């Protein structure tokens, strides 16, 4: 909402400094976005009177003008425009003047002839034909205002006005008007407010409004009030300068006197107005009714619209002539030949207007106001003001009488007043007397301990609302700062939050950067990671109104997201990248619209990492969370992964908790990754159910350990895991640990298709120092078992 400071003076006499005004209104609840004065951009431009106009000796199109600028000596200005004539008043930008857009005018020469400035067109002053309909677009602006040479054009043209831009919140539709803001201004500065009551003289032609039109409201729930007035002998012409200047200041384009009056009243009272050409109203009737199913109307913007029967229309005896509260119809639009008009000033149900506007895809100034809920009390003063302006402008004759269909006044709100309760709620100490003063400033009546808010304040319903009124006028900055007194509560993270923190710590210490990626992706991303077409993970939550395909479904896996991040880093030539995200995935549930939101941790890297580094990360996470007994198993089936370099991790109870490995070359290619890339997908939600932080002390060993190194020759296909498992199986209680320490392949030394695997075994007894014989016995048992189970023997 734009407020004109010149216009504001109609209601509040005081002069305000724009900055101080903005700060004050912001602090009392009407937030100011900024203020500006178009005149600030125009400097040293005055009214000039052309004395002589002569041809330039060396040019066909340039003219040399001698211009009286109210000084002793006239100035010479050369112009290219052809509409200049002696005697005309023009805007003359003198030497060292400024025009909108930062244009700086200086004296110079045009084809050898000195020119001490520039004569201006409408456009050069930042104006249009709508602002000054008598001017021409293509040429110098010939001023037809009451002024004399040397006058400042910004004053003459009514440009010298500060406009203040307000951000009005949805609870205060009354402030989307000059009068509403004037009330706030007066309340904020505790100064006098003067809102004139419109006076309509009416014409005495022996007829009344009932001779012209009748109004029938068929649904008073959707149209609580309908007020109409008739104006005849209408003369359509441009509005006077003052009215055009005010509209322009508020950002509204002047059109003609009738349209301008409806717009002016809408700005002044916040009440949308409409004008019908009475000659098009069949049967001289206005019927406010529901639309017929599929009824068609062409609105003022020339678009044909199909309506439904929940929508409200204004109709005559035959057809709809307006979509109620949204836009008028083309079939009853006023035009240059209009003689008689019917003014509508009505109150429509907000939700109904909102639904209608949404359904037909047409949000207008009027619908935007109606949907916030307007004050039905306002229709009458607004229509009176419109008719007063008609008479003031000589735009027509107002017929006697008003039609006002207002079956039921809204109930007066009553709120009990209790100053102590308000202070207790706010934690303040505002004196009761001051509260009473504040109510006066806000036109809230206080009688018998009850508060009666004015009709335009539908937002005031409860003690809390009143408390806000008190404190915003008293001053939000005067609210003290206290610490609440309450019983002690333990603030701590829950188990899940702690686990995520632990994972963060571990991974960042291991060189991984946490990333944040969008939760929504494109369904195409599933193709990029080779997800099978029948995979259940392809079933995603779909956004019905996405911004674009790339953000149209909620991800069921974060693998595409982290690969995207790897690709970005590779594109930026980052040599190494280690990243991870604690990523929610959204798994659909049969028959439900809401998914299961599952925490997963997805880790990805390229550069100085390999498969075994990633395996270490998996182990670290599980060890840190106290999860033991997990096992690694080759996974040849995971779609996004290299089938020979991928493993799953299973918990002791056989649940798959992680999948990790090198990314499939095709997937790498899909992401433009030219390096081996690795990913770990960890089902964090699942591992949280397995974590175990119970710790028990185990006595430290009393006796020394013995170590044995054993090397075997076996088939290349036999995995280290299988051998280790077998060693453990036969190692018994004495085997404390076993780790592989050397692997080599050499056709000559170990044979074709074979490899050598060397293991270090640590043997220990809790009861004694093991003798050589004890160890030999244990090793022999292991060797025998290995030969039996796997057919492998010690390397010769």
């Amino acid at each position, binding site marked *: 909402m734009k407020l004109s400071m010149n216009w504001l003076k109609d209601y509040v006499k005081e002069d305000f400094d724009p900055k101080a005004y903005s700060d004050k209104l*912001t*602090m*009392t609840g009407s*937030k100011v976005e900024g203020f500006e004065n178009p005149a600030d951009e125009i400097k040293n431009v005055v009214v000039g009177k052309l004395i002589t106009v002569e041809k330039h000796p060396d040019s066909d199109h340039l003219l040399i003008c001698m211009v009286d600028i109210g000084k002793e000596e006239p100035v010479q200005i050369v112009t290219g425009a052809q509409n200049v004539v002696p005697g005309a008043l023009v805007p003359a930008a003198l030497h060292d003047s400024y025009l909108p857009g930062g244009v700086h005018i200086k004296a110079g020469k045009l084809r050898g002839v000195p020119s001490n400035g520039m004569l201006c067109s409408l456009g050069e002053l930042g104006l249009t034909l709508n602002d000054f309909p008598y001017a021409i677009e293509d040429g110098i602006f010939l001023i037809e205002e009451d002024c004399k040479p040397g006058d400042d054009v910004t004053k003459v043209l009514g440009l010298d006005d500060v406009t203040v831009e307000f951000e009005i919140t*949805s*609870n205060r539709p009354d402030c989307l008007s000059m009068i509403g803001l004037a009330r706030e201004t007066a309340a904020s500065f505790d100064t006098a407010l003067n809102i004139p009551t419109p006076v309509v003289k009416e014409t005495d032609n022996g007829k009344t409004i009932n001779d012209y039109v009748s109004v029938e409201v068929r649904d008073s729930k959707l149209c609580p009030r309908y007020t109409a007035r008739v104006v005849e002998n209408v003369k359509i012409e441009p509005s006077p300068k003052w009215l055009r200047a005010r509209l322009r200041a508020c950002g509204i384009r002047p059109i003609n006197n009738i349209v301008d009056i409806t717009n002016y009243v809408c700005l002044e009272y916040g009440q949308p107005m409409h004008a019908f050409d009475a000659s098009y109203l069949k049967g001289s009737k206005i019927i406010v009714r529901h639309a017929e199913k599929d009824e068609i109307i062409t609105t003022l913007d020339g678009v044909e619209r199909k309506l439904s029967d929940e929508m409200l229309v204004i109709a005559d005896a035959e057809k709809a002539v307006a979509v109620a509260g949204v836009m008028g119809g083309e079939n009853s639009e006023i035009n240059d030949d209009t003689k008689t008009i019917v003014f509508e000033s009505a109150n429509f149900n*907000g*939700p109904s207007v909102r639904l209608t506007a949404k359904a037909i895809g047409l949000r207008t100034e009027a619908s935007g106001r109606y949907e916030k809920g307007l004050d039905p009390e306002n229709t009458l003063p607004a229509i009176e003001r419109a008719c007063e302006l008609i008479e003031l402008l000589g735009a027509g004759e107002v017929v006697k009488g008003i039609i006002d269909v207002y079956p039921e006044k809204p109930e007066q709100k009553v709120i009990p007043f209790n100053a102590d309760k308000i202070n*207790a*709620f*706010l*934690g*303040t100490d505002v004196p009761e007397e001051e509260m009473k003063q504040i109510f006066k400033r806000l036109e809230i009546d206080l009688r018998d301990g009850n508060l009666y808010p004015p009709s335009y304040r539908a937002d005031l319903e409860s003690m*809390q*609302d009143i*408390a*806000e009124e008190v*404190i915003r006028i008293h001053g*939000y900055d005067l*609210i*003290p700062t206290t*610490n*609440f007194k*309450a019983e*002690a*509560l333990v*603030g*701590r*993270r829950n188990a899940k*939050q702690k686990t995520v923190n632990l994972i*963060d710590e571990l991974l*960042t*210490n*291991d*060189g*991984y*950067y*946490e990333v*944040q990626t*969008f*939760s*929504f992706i494109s369904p195409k991303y599933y193709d990029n990671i080779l997800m099978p077409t029948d995979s259940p993970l392809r079933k995603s*939550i779909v*956004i*019905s*109104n996405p*911004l674009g395909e790339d*953000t149209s479904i*909620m991800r069921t896996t974060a693998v595409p997201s982290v690969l995207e*991040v790897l690709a*970005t*880093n590779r594109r*930026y030539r*980052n040599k190494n990248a280690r*990243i991870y995200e604690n990523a*929610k995935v*959204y798994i659909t549930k049969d028959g439900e*619209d*809401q998914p299961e*939101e599952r925490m997963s941790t997805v880790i990805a890297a390229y550069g100085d990492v390999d498969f075994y580094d990633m395996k270490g990360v998996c182990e670290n996470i599980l060890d840190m969370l106290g999860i033991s007994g997990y096992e690694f198993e080759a996974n040849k089936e995971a779609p996004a992964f290299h089938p020979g370099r991928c493993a799953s991790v299973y918990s002791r109870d056989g649940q798959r908790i992680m999948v990790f490995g090198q990314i499939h070359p095709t997937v790498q290619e899909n992401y433009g990754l030219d390096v081996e890339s690795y990913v770990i997908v960890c089902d964090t939600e699942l591992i949280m159910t397995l974590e175990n932080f119970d710790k028990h002390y185990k006595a430290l060993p009393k006796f020394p350990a013995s170590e044995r190194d054993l090397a075997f020759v076996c088939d290349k296909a036999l995995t280290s895991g299988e051998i280790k498992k077998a060693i453990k199986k036969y190692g018994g209680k004495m085997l404390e640990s076993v780790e592989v320490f050397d692997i080599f392949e050499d056709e000559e030394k170990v044979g074709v298709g074979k490899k050598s695997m060397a293991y270090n075994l640590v043997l220990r007894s809790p009861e004694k120092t093991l003798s050589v014989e004890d160890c030999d016995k244990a090793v022999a048992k292991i060797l025998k078992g290995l030969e039996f189970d796997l057919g492998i023997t010690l390397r010769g």
Partner: protein
Amino acid sequence: MKAQLEAIKAEALEAIAKAEGAQDLENVRVSYLGKKSPLTAVLKNMGSLTPEERPVMGALGNSVREAITNALEEAKANIGKLEMAKKLEKETIDVTLPSKKCKCGKIHPISAAQKEMEEIFLGMGFSIAEGPEVETDYYNFTALNTPEFHPARDVQDTFYITEKVLLRSQTSTVQVHVMEQQKPPIRVISPGRVYRSDAVDATHSPMFHQCEGLVIDKGITMADLKGTLLLFAKQMFGENTEIRFRPHHFPFTEPSCEVDVSCFVCGGKGCGVCKGEGWIEILGAGMVHPNVLRMSGIDPEEYSGFAFGMGIERIVMTKFGISDLRLLYENDIRFLSQF
């Protein structure tokens, strides 16, 4: 004999002085103190002296031996020091060569800010609550005093899944879940992702993070809200931070306010970061609306409370001077490593 002893002493001391290493000293020791040394030979001749001379010469002989021994010890110690110094000199390394540490990663700046907020509020006895991101319109709007057809539903452009299910546009949804599950006293914050239909540009993103706070108890006042937020702001932005309440409107709080903190760059004088205002808007807050309390089964006559919500990205961006929001979601490691 005396002259002989003096001569040996002088000779030995000279040899010690000339010695260049531990081996030289050992040689000196053997030749001047050993069994075949001239000193031993001289002392063996003691028998030829008179009984009167013997103790005198004996004492002299011992003092010569002692002098040589002491000189040897001293020289040895000196040479040891020298040799150690040489060894250390040889072992000198270039300490400016790069380290071998495993370079640590970092959590994302959004998480870092979020965790900092969490720490502050945990310290004040708040818990951290969570709620679904794919929500029903009841929790996102209706229960927050924004019934169907309410114009405030238009203020935020919401992503819908179905007519009744949507991506939450605010973390305030969690307030309602908490109030339904828990009786007062309530003291929670709830950070998380929210979604609004804004195209990506330098200051907008269809997904971003908010942190919500809620306190419900008997006798909670608006002054308590101000006190709590001041405490938070001082922890988050520095001890000298001040806060400012400005009236505003949210459907689910009454009275409502927007909260500014004094600019932590210029301290309130006005600078580029605060656009000359001296204040930076960081959150919205207010007293929980009685309708919201009632809908969640809490009697507004008995209890009152406050709620607040802030955008984490905005705080991260102003705090670190990041001018383009997209950097936060691009995840370039050169960017992430700066925080």
